[in-house]
């Protein structure tokens, strides 16, 4: 494995697809869909290759890339590297897992995109651009690069929702843009303040400068304790929009309901996770002191998210809304784990990030398959679908079981580990949180059984069950969910180093 351009290759290989798509006439549906799908493969293959190599002991530091990029000013008092923004990429175990998740979900979402009805060319070009942004976010070595990739995801997403969504797609797209725009603006302010005070935006260098007393002397300008708290809270809000933390969640409901399901697979599976990733990487990584002070508050936010989402999911009439609130509820587990701030908690939070990525992607894939046949996801109009579509119904039930944390599936491991962590530090809060476990079962069974069990409320005679091309991605996701649930070591092992580093930052 030649390290020098490997990460760039993973991130930018979808670009090749975009260029090739530009030369395909927009009426050639089959070619466009095939090309769109194929363009996601190089990233996936390379990412899996890197992952396997890492499991076999490859040192990820050798993948790091660095090239000179932007330099500000030529003042005598500045050294060569100060106020320089380089193009630098690097990954650790956590980032690599996220890259594999992203590349995999992108491929599967590309398969699920067969249900897209119009303007395939534009769709797939934006789709691939979105993938570049998502992959880049996880590999970025400095804050500015992170921000650029973060913004790259915003634009294609806006158009994908606004153009290929359902009835209220425009409103959803604007809502998405405004909320995330505000989040981005706050993030940018934080990044710029850090950059101005320290003279660098390199993440590992920043860690050093903020905590090593010797390095603190080299700051361009001092960063007071109050300012650190301010910056931390700003980060919490910025990534809280993305995650989302209640009450910053309204935008994502619209996106879940209005965007095409194949895009929601990526949105719920990866984009929301950027919020968690940012919170862990920057909130916890750069401001461990502040994070510790806010830990209990974050745990409470987590319980609020968990319960609020669960109770709301219980009253929804639209299956997509149930899943949207379910995502909010499940992100509560991430916060619960982070709030625990011990080995178990942090591992549980990261497990949940990955596990929920697969599970929500699976559920939205099934929504896409189901909508294609029933043309509605309103619970009141559905029922008894298991008779006409036994396989689809079975997969839907399996997805619900994964989501409600059935042991043997990945959701259980993450939920259990996160709660294990929180029970150590705050048993009462954790005990309140466990109500969420019951409610999750209640709302998921209510929704799924309403669709698949009971008497049929509509005519399913014309309906055919799930097709082979749709089964493959479903099986891949379900297989991974079960694999992680049965053999969690596959995730625990690559994450170990990352978690240890974080706990070191916390000072044990």
């Amino acid at each position: 494995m030649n390290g020098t351009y490997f990460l760039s290759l993973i991130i930018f290989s979808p670009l090749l697809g975009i260029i090739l798509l530009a030369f395909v006439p927009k009426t050639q549906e089959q070619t466009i869909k095939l090309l769109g799908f194929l363009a996601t493969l190089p990233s996936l293959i390379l990412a899996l290759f890197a992952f396997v190599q890492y499991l076999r002991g490859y040192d990820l530091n050798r993948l790091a890339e660095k090239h000179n990029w932007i330099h500000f000013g030529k003042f005598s008092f500045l050294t060569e590297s100060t106020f320089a923004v380089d193009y630098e990429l690097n990954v650790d175990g956590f980032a690599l897992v996220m890259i594999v998740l992203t590349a995999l979900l992108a491929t599967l979402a590309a398969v699920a995109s067969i249900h897209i009805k119009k303007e395939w060319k534009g769709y797939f070009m934006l789709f691939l651009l979105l993938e570049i942004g998502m992959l880049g976010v996880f590999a970025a070595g400095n804050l500015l690069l992170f921000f650029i990739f973060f913004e790259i995801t915003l634009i294609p997403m806006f158009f994908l929702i606004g153009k290929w969504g359902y009835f209220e797609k425009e409103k959803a797209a604007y809502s998405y843009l405004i909320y995330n725009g505000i989040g981005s603006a706050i993030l940018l302010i934080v990044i710029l303040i850090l950059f101005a005070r320290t003279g660098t935006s390199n993440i590992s260098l920043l860690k050093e400068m903020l905590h090593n007393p010797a390095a603190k002397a080299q700051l361009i300008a001092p960063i007071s304790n109050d300012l650190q708290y301010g910056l931390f809270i700003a980060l919490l809000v910025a990534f809280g929009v993305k995650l989302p933390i209640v009450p910053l969640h309204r935008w994502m409901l619209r996106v879940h309901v209005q965007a095409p399901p194949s895009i929601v697979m990526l949105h719920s599976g990866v984009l929301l996770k950027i919020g968690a990733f940012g919170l862990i990487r920057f909130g916890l990584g750069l401001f461990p002191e502040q994070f510790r002070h806010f830990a209990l508050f974050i745990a409470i936010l987590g319980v609020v998210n968990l319960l609020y989402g669960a109770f709301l999911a219980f009253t929804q009439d639209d299956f997509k809304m149930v899943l949207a609130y379910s995502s909010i509820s499940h992100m509560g587990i991430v916060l619960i784990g982070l709030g625990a701030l011990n080995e178990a908690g942090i591992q549980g939070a990261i497990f949940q990030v990955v596990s929920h990525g697969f599970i929500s992607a699976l559920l939205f894939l099934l929504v896409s398959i189901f909508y294609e046949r029933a043309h509605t996801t309103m619970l009141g109009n559905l029922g008894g679908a298991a008779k006409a579509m036994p396989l689809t119904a079975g997969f839907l039930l399996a997805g619900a079981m994964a989501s409600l944390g059935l042991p043997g599936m990945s959701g259980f491991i993450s939920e259990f580990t996160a709660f294990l962590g929180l029970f150590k530090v705050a048993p009462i809060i954790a005990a309140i949180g466990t109500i969420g476990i019951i409610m999750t079962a209640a709302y998921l069974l209510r929704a799924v059984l309403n669709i698949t069990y009971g008497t049929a409320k509509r005519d399913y005679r014309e309906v055919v069950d799930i097709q082979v091309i749709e089964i493959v991605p479903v099986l891949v996701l379900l297989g991974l969910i079960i694999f992680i649930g049965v053999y969690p070591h596959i995730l625990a092992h690559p994450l170990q180093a990352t978690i240890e580093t974080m706990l070191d930052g916390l000072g044990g």
Partner: protein
Amino acid sequence: MMENAWLIPLFPLFSFLILLLVGKRMKETSAYVGIIMTFLSFIGAVAVLLERLDAPTYKAEQVWFTIGSIKITAGFEVNALNALMLVVVSLVSFLVHIYSKGYMHGDDRFSVFYAYLGLFTFAMLGLVMSPNLLQTYVFWELVGLGSFLLIGFYFYKEEAKAAAKKAFIMTRIGDVGLLIGMILLFWQAGSFEYDHIFAAVKAGNVSQTMITLSAILIFIGAVGKSGQFPLHTWLPDAMEGPTPVSALIHAATMVAAGVYLVAALFPLYEASETAMLTVAIVGGFTAIFAASIGLVQTDIKRVLAYSTVSQLGYMMLALGSGGYVAGIFHLTTHAFFKALLFLAAGSVIHAVQTQDIEKMGGLWRKMPLTAPLFLIGTLAISGVPLLSGFFSKDEILVAAWTHGHSVLFWIAVLAAFFTAFYMFRLFFLVFSGEGRHEAKEVHESPAVMTFPMIVLSVLAIFSGYINTPWFGTFLGDWLTDEGFAHEEAPSWIMVVATVVSLLGILLAWLMYGRRSLARDWLSSRAPLTYNVLFNKYYIDEFYAMTFGYVTKFISVLCKYIDRFVVEGIAVAIAAITKAIGAFGARLQNGQVQMYGAVTLIGLTILVVILAFTGGYL
């Protein structure tokens, strides 16, 4: 064989996977896959049991995954209790697999049924050989899944859908208790391992409060699974599932898992008097409570379901009174005679196509095999001397008398009377007198169905002899490593037990057999009591009025908060932004004076900021 005991649960898992993949094409030959695989499990279980009879406990474990420095292990353990449970579970499962071939004949989803049975059997066998609490929890949930799928097997029926959902959620409430208790114990004892927990408790490393708290929390899990009051309501509804399922899951195996769990954690419970008392009281109350409901029900399966709840209460009472052996002994004999009763009931339902006992009657002659087999089960559960139930029930009464509270003892005696009465009421209504059913031709069930019942009836008669005060307490000695001393209890207990059971039978015979007592004796004299009993003490209605409404209320409240408060704030912020924008737009009026003024104000603000902060915050 003991070191290969892990193979035992894998056979049914294999059956599940095979049938999931190719079951549709195999149609009814699917049954053979399931039967052969569970038979292999049964053979393995018997081999393990025989080896364990005079060998020490075998345990194998390895690291499952790590959480930082914490190592979570997985493996299996063959101790006396586990070896016994393996045989009971695999045997009943094997027999039910055979029986179902006849019972489910002609069903569209025949292979799916067998697949689910395989999944359940796998999980149940895995549960009873888990060496630690976490692994127990994993299989605990998986048996719940198996139960859920099989209750909802007739998914197109609204009742089945509701029952499946209810079973899952009610048991999950209990499961959360188990989860919390387990995690609390983990942080106290530093491990999920049964051995380590017991060692920590013994060494006094766990505070008394913590022992009591976690023991009671874990007991909540057992309450959910074993249908104990107040989480019992799902079990009677679970009768919506096919009858073989009721026999396997909701009589013999899964519902006994709660009893098994308390037994497996017995040293923990013994360390806390409060926890023991809680178990005993909940068990004793459930025993009498469910039996009283069983007196007036008219659905054959529901009578048996309430009887199961009541008998499980008996087992809990035994454990709570310190009767470790008594509890497990009754679990074993109950598994056989209750499975027999359910299978026989299934045979009857199969023949007359109804579950309403008011519409049965006169089947003694028409079902010459089923009827006597059902009678054997009825005699066994009623505690008639020399049958299995007599010995195990006696053991429980002895335990309750010597260690428990005397009130609990008399409750248990009364419950035994009720049991004998409602079981023979059932028997007489179904088999004696004139036929009240609409089915024209009533046939005895095929041999594939009667064979398993015959095997079970033999066990229902003779399985009691593994532990009797007369011939030897083999089971007790073995379960407790010779440390078991059969309490020298007053011999009148056995007499009392026999008398109440015979009285119950006599009363049932007078009312429903000979009919010299009016049948509406209770309903005419105390209509209120009758209605309360018939409507199961209105517990379901009570839950719907309280927990149901509270949940709905919170949900709707959240919904409005979300729609108006949260969204309202967002709209307000948007409005403020818009207002600022509109204000800014008005400044753009093309007049130089205005622009000059704005520039000056802006500059002033910037200068002030610079002066105060030096450019940095």
